[in-house]
């Protein structure tokens, strides 16, 4: 698999599961701050990138396994994850073993969400982004068309990508987690610090 194909693989097999993962981490591991979650996700992507994709049967399962592993490392090293939450880490196993493709948010819904996110970008930023992504103009052509420098084009695109990426990762798909957590776990959702 060449490098562009590897990015496409990540886009197809890992990205769709990020919002769910973040939602889960936020709810279950309250000791983690948003920065910690960002750290975890970035570490996870780095590890996954190093893997041989051909051997990965389910991107979702692999993502969760990777995160579980990282959490265990963090917990051992630095007590960032309080020890009583290790039980929660184990429940990641249960989730990760479910196959997930049919639970993916419908493509249409996802795109509707993207539209809203894009619409919320500042006007010039949005126009640059749309000319590049929707109209397929090169950076240079976008710059010429709008009478701005290529550096400015880069700045706008950077802002657009950072915002869209963050929004997509944070806004969980509709229906979110309730249907993906092991049902036995849901009963004690509010009371897991019992040891």
């Amino acid at each position: 698999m060449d490098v562009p194909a590897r990015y496409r693989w990540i886009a197809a097999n890992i990205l769709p599961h990020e919002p769910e993962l973040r939602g889960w981490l936020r709810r279950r591991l309250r000791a983690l701050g948003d920065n910690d979650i960002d750290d975890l996700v970035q570490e996870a992507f780095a590890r996954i990138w190093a893997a041989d994709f051909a051997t990965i049967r389910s991107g979702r399962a692999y993502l969760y396994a990777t995160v579980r592993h990282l959490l265990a490392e963090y917990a051992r090293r630095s007590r960032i994850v309080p020890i009583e939450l290790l039980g929660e880490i184990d429940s990641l196993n249960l989730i990760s073993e479910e196959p997930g493709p049919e639970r993916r948010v419908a493509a249409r819904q996802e795109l509707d969400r993207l539209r809203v996110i894009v619409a919320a970008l500042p006007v010039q930023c949005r126009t640059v982004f749309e000319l590049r992504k929707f109209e397929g103009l090169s950076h240079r052509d976008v710059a010429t068309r709008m009478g701005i420098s290529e550096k400015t084009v880069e700045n706008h695109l950077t802002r657009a990508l950072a915002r869209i990426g963050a929004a997509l990762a944070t806004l969980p798909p509709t229906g979110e987690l309730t249907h993906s957590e092991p049902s036995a776990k849901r009963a004690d959702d509010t009371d897991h610090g019992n040891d």
Partner: protein
Amino acid sequence: MTQTMETISELAARWAVRADAGALGPDEQRELETWLAADSRHRGAYVRARAQWVDLDRLAALQGPAGGAVGSSFVAQPAAEKPASEPAAASAGVGARPEARAAALSRRQLLAAGIAVIGVLGGGLSWLILREGQERYTSGIGEVRRIALEDGSTLLLNTASEVTVRWTKEQRDIRLVRGEALFEVAHDNSRPFIVQASDTAVRAVGTAFAVRLDAAQVDVTVTEGVVEVVDLKTMSGLGPATTPVSRFEVKRVAAHEHAVIARSRAPEVEPIAPAKADRQLAWREGMVSFDGETLQTAVAEINRHNRRQIVVDDPALAAMPIVGVFRATDLEGFSAAAAAALKARAIPDGDVIRLQPEPSKTLK
């Protein structure tokens, strides 16, 4: 843990955008390598940003007349070219508030535009025969191409498809040579938009519809407005302009309807649920979508989009139902998901991936 997270994500986004601009220069490349090597989170953030950037390409497929306004005067605008005499259909979508873009062209407006088709029919059928000086558009396997036509219409080509276009004063003459295409037709009362696929002609003025040409049949799915489907098989001896329209099998197909014109049968028109139409047209977003179709059907569909092919030898497995939304070009992802869902194995075998029933047991 750290307060630099925003910076990491943003830097990663910047590097992804630079990579998008073209190959990095040697200095930039070195700078990137240094940054990536400094912290494993940098690598992860960068991979994530690159993947997100790629993922956003699916957005492009959305940009038809309905979503195409893009709030920007730079972008060619189907709606903008509508004649002033059509206030209802014109101007919708132009300068629409960004958050309303998705719904800019309301169903009703498009319907109003499309219905005008009816009054136009009867202008002779010379449009069936003319052919010369045409434009040709093709898409490769796995490619979905959006093409803005000079009349303001949009053409979205599905995988491995070919369309020719010819403009005359009287009509917009399109031919689907192979594959599948979605047409979002700019309104022009004076020039009907005619798509011919094999023995079927579809005639519209301003509307949106998809035509798919298979060996056995032609499928027409209308998403907005109304079109007329003419079954040319019913022509008696190809007598051109002199043949009265009434001699042809003409079917009216409205939004949320689907027509099948099989080789050996008269056209059949039936309602299609919006959800089903969306699934059939999931390729607009680079996806394929199944809701209980057999594995065999699903594999045939996904194979259309890929050079590498999936093979299912086992008939019982081939008959199992598949549910899910998949990226059309992600053959590996589809086979892995199908294998997981159907307790099968996906075995790479040279040019193909074989899906086989799981042997009774013994896995590590």
